[in-house]
């Protein structure tokens, strides 16, 4: 399958950093409508990598191509769900999702916003302020905002971090449902093996200092997936054994 996203980074370091490169010689691809996860420890540079792919960070030596075009800056084609979700506190749930619309008065776009409010189950909370939302509701608003403009690439920066297990499972299911409706390409970074396995087709294990891909696991299990099924457990076992071995060595 032709890759949607192609990343080739020779080196990246912050101007005033004391240590070496944060990322060095990292390259990978994400196929069209694929879901790829980068799994690694906190501080590995995963968020920086996503910012760089989104065009928010330009101080690096390398290239990022989306659908064969060089990414030169932030654009609607690449949406990102940030770790802190970044809801605008002065906008209601509805207004936060509308923020992604090109023209919030266009009937087609209104319909699209309404569709995503329904998908994430926030019809009753449409006029609520972000400060009154639970962690799960906040994540749902951020997802809806990212999906509403139908991006070609969706970047997820540990979007389920800090949520309780019930909310986490619910959001995993909703995210897969949303992806089924939106058919977009996804790159997620996470340190949760469970999230990465349940959602992804491919899981890259990354290491720190400098960040590089150490190993790749394919998750050949059809979606929608059932938690605890044998095939998922087998891959999870492999990944955990590999990561434990790496930590020990």
């Amino acid at each position, binding site marked *: 399958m032709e890759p949607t996203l192609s990343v080739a980074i020779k080196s990246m370091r912050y101007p005033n950093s004391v240590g070496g490169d944060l990322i060095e010689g990292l390259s990978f691809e994400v196929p069209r409508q694929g879901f790829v996860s980068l799994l690694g420890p906190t501080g590995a540079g995963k968020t920086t990598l996503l910012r760089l792919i*989104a065009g*928010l960070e330009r101080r690096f030596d390398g290239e990022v191509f989306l659908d064969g075009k060089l990414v030169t*800056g*932030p*654009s*609607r084609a*690449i*949406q*990102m769900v*940030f770790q*802190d979700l*970044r809801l*605008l*506190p*002065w*906008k209601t749930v509805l207004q936060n999702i509308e*923020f*992604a619309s090109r023209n919030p008065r266009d009937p087609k776009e209104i319909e699209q916003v309404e569709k995503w409010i329904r998908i994430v189950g926030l019809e009753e909370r449409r006029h609520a*302020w*972000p*400060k009154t939302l639970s962690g799960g509701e906040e994540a749902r608003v951020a997802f809806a905002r990212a999906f509403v*403009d139908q991006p070609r690439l969706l970047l997820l920066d540990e979007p389920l971090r800090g949520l309780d297990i019930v909310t986490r499972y619910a959001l995993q299911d909703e995210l897969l449902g949303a992806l089924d409706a939106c058919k977009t390409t996804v790159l997620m970074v996470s340190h949760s093996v469970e999230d990465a396995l349940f959602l992804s087709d491919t899981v890259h294990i990354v290491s720190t200092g400098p960040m590089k891909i150490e190993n790749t696991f394919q998750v050949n299990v059809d979606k929608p997936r059932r938690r605890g099924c044998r095939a998922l457990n087998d891959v999870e076992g492999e990944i955990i054994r590999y990561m434990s071995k790496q930590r020990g060595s």
Partner: protein
Amino acid sequence: MIRSARMVVWLLPVLIVASWEVAVRTHFVPPSQAATPSDVVIRLFRLMASGPLLIHASYSMFRIALGVVLGSLIGVLTSVLVARSRTVNVLFSPTVQLLAGIPVVVWIPFWVMFFGTDEAFKIAMAAISTFFLVHLQTLQALRTVERDYMELSAIYEKTPWQRAVDVMLPSAAPAILMAIRTSLIFGWVVIFFVEYASATQGSEGLGWFIADARAMGRIEDEFAGLLFLAVIAYVCDKLLGRLQRRLLVWSDTEENAG
């Protein structure tokens, strides 16, 4: 416990008013220089009932309202331009910062030169004192708008206008509203001073009324005017505080706004 605490709050004001009453009645303070609080309150109600005080107050309120609105609008607009454009910043900011440090009374001869001594002059004095406060506070807030929100605007390809209206101004709204509220408090001082100082040129406004009463030896009228000015300033501040809480209902700190 709460009830007794509430009563303690009133202890000091009651003590001050009582001391004032006693000091005037016992001639500790010469009656030609002060009136008793009870006489002042009675006079205040009479003046309100007969009308002149309300007319004078409406002149002052009109001047201060227009001055604060004009000063705020220009202050916010220029701060957005300075925050968005390096050229405007270089052209504008050094001069504004230099002038902001100058006491507001220094503007009097310049404003008289441009506007004469009538309404426009008085409104311009309230506007200039508001402008510096609102401009500098808003600019500071706009410059600290979180990079996160600006990145989000970049991803959604928002135009400079959309960024200003949808992101920068709402983000700076708590600072802008606080600056306007402070300007209103300071504006009363400015308007009172201008009306008082230019009493020979005018014949209306609370400042003029108080100056005229003092000049004519109407001590009760003078104190009644001052008391009325204090009450209006307090009520205006409380109303603006309510508006501030209403507009910042989304903010985590809105309960601290009033």
